[in-house]
């Protein structure tokens, strides 16, 4: 639903951050947590739609990495992965203290070498 504006904003950000090198970008990696409400396929679809508007972007690969949900257990004082919506540490303590899983960020940019 909001993926088009997210993808557009990613490339606007890159254009502002790298005005001289933008045309040499070959790959952009985005990290999206499982709680970020982002569907990677919708990001990919939005990117393909943006390419139709701006064909120069067709040379860029957009990769979406899904990040698992990590929560912190106050009893064990350690982080654990939340699998299949079970916000519970191995010790049996439930936790809603989320350490990872809500982020949406540009994590890596690759440029064409000179």
């Amino acid at each position, binding site marked *: 639903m909001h993926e088009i504006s997210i993808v557009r904003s990613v490339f606007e950000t890159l254009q502002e951050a790298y005005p001289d090198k933008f045309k040499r970008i070959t790959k952009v990696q985005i990290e999206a947590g*499982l709680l970020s409400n982002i569907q990677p396929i*919708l990001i990919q679809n939005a990117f*393909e739609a943006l390419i139709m508007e701006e064909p120069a972007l067709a040379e*860029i*690969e957009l990769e979406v990495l899904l990040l698992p949900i990590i929560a912190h257990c106050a009893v064990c004082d350690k982080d654990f992965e939340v699998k299949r919506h079970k916000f519970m540490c191995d010790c049996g303590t439930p936790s809603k203290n989320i350490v990872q899983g809500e982020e949406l960020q540009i994590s890596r940019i690759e440029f064409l070498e000179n």
Partner: protein
Amino acid sequence: MATSLSMLTEPLVIRQALAKDRDMVGLTIDFFEIEWYEAYKSRMRKQTQGGVEVLVDKGNRVAFEDGDLLYLSDDRAILLKMKPCDCVVLRPRSLQEVGTICFEIGNKHVPIFITDDNEVCVAYDAPLYQLLLSGGFELEIEERVLHPLQMIKAYGNKSQK
């Protein structure tokens, strides 16, 4: 002497899947692994399990399928392997329930897959799982391969047979 593909300095460029009309007995089989949501990507670069650098440059959005033949030589074949992922699986008991489920999921613009066993599958994400749970639907989380051919489209659905 056969060329070692992993020694190539330039990536192996794949434009489309090849027809599987040749016996692959005796060939070294290598796998190019992708996530289900990468099947439609027109451009991606990554290594096969055997270490061959591959650049997919399709120039279109025709989806790859699990098992597609990407490269074939006298001694080697590269096959596409789609990674399984956690999915929310629903088993509707009536056509009306199929409609209700698809309406709820479709409102989030999330791709829906209908399996050969008439199960409704969507890639797991926490907010969607909670939404469906709160809607009172009976659902499971299971590891599945999401096949593009089983994806429902607003138009252009074709028979897979």
